[in-house]
């Protein structure tokens, strides 16, 4: 069916169409460059196809290798050093009794907590940054860390609680804060900037509350509180490993299953709607997952500074791929935390300096370097 046009119009139309057909043909001949689509596609029978981004895949593999290597080295580090080969032997069940106790009961759980906390923070941070569409939209900035801290400080300062009670307090504080931020930012949907702004407001209130609690504490409790607030892996055991592991086992597949919807959300709510993403539902689901991951990680190790902020940014630079880069961010978080733990033990002796100090300094310096180089490149 054609629009009504007069004779001149038809001529005009035919002319332009002829030109366009020629142009189209020329374009078709010039094949679409191979680089146009990232990655390789693996296709199987029955219409199954999975896309793999080779660079991202390599980055993830290398990060995993780095994380595992660092873990083995970390297990061998301490007052009683164990060579890497013995560590591996012990992990595989062939070590002597003394080493077995040190490795399996003391150091392995600590390293596992480090890996899981790092992965959770990396993934949670990537989710928050993607949902708020803001590289600053990390749980530290949005007040979740402060919420967990408030919960923990109440336990430490007001009740002189045990480690388990402190962890529980942190968990409840984090979840309550996440809920409060979502409710306060909700106004016919959660707009990215509003989420960040409300989060900043909540963070400021909670920071003040935390400051108050610390001034109320006696010096011993205050010192304990500051160590907790920095984030530390000291003395973590299997009791922290299992809950985190179970949570990750449930949430990580759930999050990755919704990752494609999140990629569409990157292009704005309207585009995502038009492509058939149920925007609010996807966003709520992923936010809940991110809050749970962050709160659980914080409960286990304290609000380890800036992993959630920097891991996704680092991962993104390494894969050079658009999108939230969830899996690379997760692996980067785990690697970062284990390496930082190793660095703090090497540099200051065992258990002197909590890991959060090192991640804070590393993260800050990295971001500065990033800004300096991007300033040269003229991009933000």
């Amino acid at each position, binding site marked *: 069916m054609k629009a009504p046009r007069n004779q001149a119009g038809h001529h005009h139309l035919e002319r332009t169409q002829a030109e366009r057909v020629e142009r189209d043909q020329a374009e078709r001949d010039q094949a679409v460059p191979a680089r146009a689509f990232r990655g390789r596609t693996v296709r199987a029978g029955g219409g199954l196809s999975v896309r793999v981004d080779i660079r991202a895949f390599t980055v993830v593999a290398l990060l995993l290798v780095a994380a595992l290597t660092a873990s083995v080295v970390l297990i061998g580090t301490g007052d009683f050093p164990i060579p890497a080969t013995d560590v591996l032997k012990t992990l595989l069940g062939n070590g002597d009794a003394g080493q077995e106790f040190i490795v399996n009961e003391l150091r392995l759980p600590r390293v596992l907590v480090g890996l899981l906390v790092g992965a959770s923070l990396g993934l949670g941070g990537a989710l928050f940054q993607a949902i708020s569409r*803001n*590289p*600053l939209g990390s749980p530290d*900035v949005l007040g979740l860390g402060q919420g967990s801290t408030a919960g923990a400080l109440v336990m430490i300062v007001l009740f002189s609680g045990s480690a388990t009670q402190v962890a529980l307090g942190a968990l409840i504080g984090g979840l309550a804060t996440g809920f409060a931020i979502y409710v*306060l*930012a909700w*106004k016919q949907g959660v*707009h990215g*900037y*509003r989420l*960040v*702004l*409300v989060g*900043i*407001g*909540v963070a*400021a*209130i909670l*920071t*003040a*509350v935390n*400051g*108050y609690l*610390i*001034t109320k504490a006696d*010096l011993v409790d*205050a*010192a304990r509180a*500051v*160590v907790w*607030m*920095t984030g530390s892996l000291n003395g973590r055991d299997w009791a922290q490993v299992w809950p985190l592991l179970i949570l990750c086992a449930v949430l990580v597949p759930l999050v990755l299953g919704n990752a494609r919807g999140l990629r569409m959300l990157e292009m704005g709510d309207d585009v995502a709607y038009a492509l058939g993403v149920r925007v609010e539902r996807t966003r709520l689901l992923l936010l809940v997952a991110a809050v749970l991951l962050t709160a659980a990680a914080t409960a286990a190790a304290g609000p380890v*500074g*800036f992993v959630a*902020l920097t891991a996704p940014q680092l991962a993104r630079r390494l894969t050079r791929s658009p999108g939230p880069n969830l899996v690379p961010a997760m692996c980067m978080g785990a690697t970062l935390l284990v390496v930082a733990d190793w660095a703090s033990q090497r540099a200051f002796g065992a258990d*002197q*300096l*909590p890991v*959060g*100090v*090192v*991640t*804070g*300094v590393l*993260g*800050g*310096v990295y*971001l*500065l370097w*990033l*800004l*300096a180089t991007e*300033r040269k490149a*003229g991009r*933000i």
Partner: protein
Amino acid sequence: MLVDSPPEPSAETAPAPPTRRAIRAAGLFVSVAVLVLVALASIAIGAKELSLEQVWHGLFEDSGTYGDVVVSERLSRTVLGLLVGAALGLSGAVLQALTRNPLADPGLLGINAGASAAVVTAITFFGVTSLSGYVWFAFAGAAVVGALVYFLGGSRGSTPVRLALAGTAISAALYGYLQAVMIMDEAALGKMRFWTVGSLSSATDSTIGQVLPFLAIGTVLALVLARPLNAMAMGDDTARALGAHLGRTRALSMAAATLLCGAATAACGPIMFVGLMIPHLVRSFTGPDMRWILPYATVLSPVLLLGADVIGRLVARPAELQVGIVTAILGGPVFIFLVRRRRTAQL
């Protein structure tokens, strides 16, 4: 003091309708009156209540009675509150205009972190113990970080996001350092935990004397910048077309903000939220004209700060709640309310 503010309408900007100007001018007078009341309350209220008569006596006929001593102590605290409040409000207004970002505040730009890191260094490594000793360190730290953020944030092509990122990055590194020192040195923790929440309680005349010159220079600079900042508000290109010197205005604004906020932080520790909130509130009443925003911010910020200080003294008698805590707990909800009220908040 209000160098660049109307009433006289200037030649190049269209005068506001007389009624609106009258309302704004009247509002400013009312604000000043409220400020005077709050200042009097700040002198009268505390662990020991004083009657207005006693306050009057202490202020003007000092004869060494107990009441007079209390008054003179509270007087320096009140004066410091006035100065610091005005400085925080002004620096917030200038920074928000400079970055065109309603979120810009000294905390976000790393100035607090710089001052805190410098103070902890002073305590731990230089053995400084007196408050008057901290001041210089805090001030230097704030100034260095302010300059660093400005240059890393892209001195010429700075965008709000770049500045915020640079501020966050520097804060991250400095807070890591701060925490490391506090964990390793318990004495530092003992002092820092009170300093970092921000308080007016340690005010003395000598503190005031130390920060006053910086505050004065910063205030004059900020008020003179009202007109160029107005031009900047419309975007770099428009500002240039209007004949504003972008580079000069940026550098001077950053200098003014650092002077004001650095001196304020040095005197009473990082006080959050006054600099963020008051310019927000003021703007919703005056509109975007910096020539009104700046004087209003100068008057209303100390109202909030002194009011919070009085509340802090009232709720926890005979002890007191530090003013930094009260401002954040009062200011946070107001800020969230403002964010929610806007149709779409832009960054």
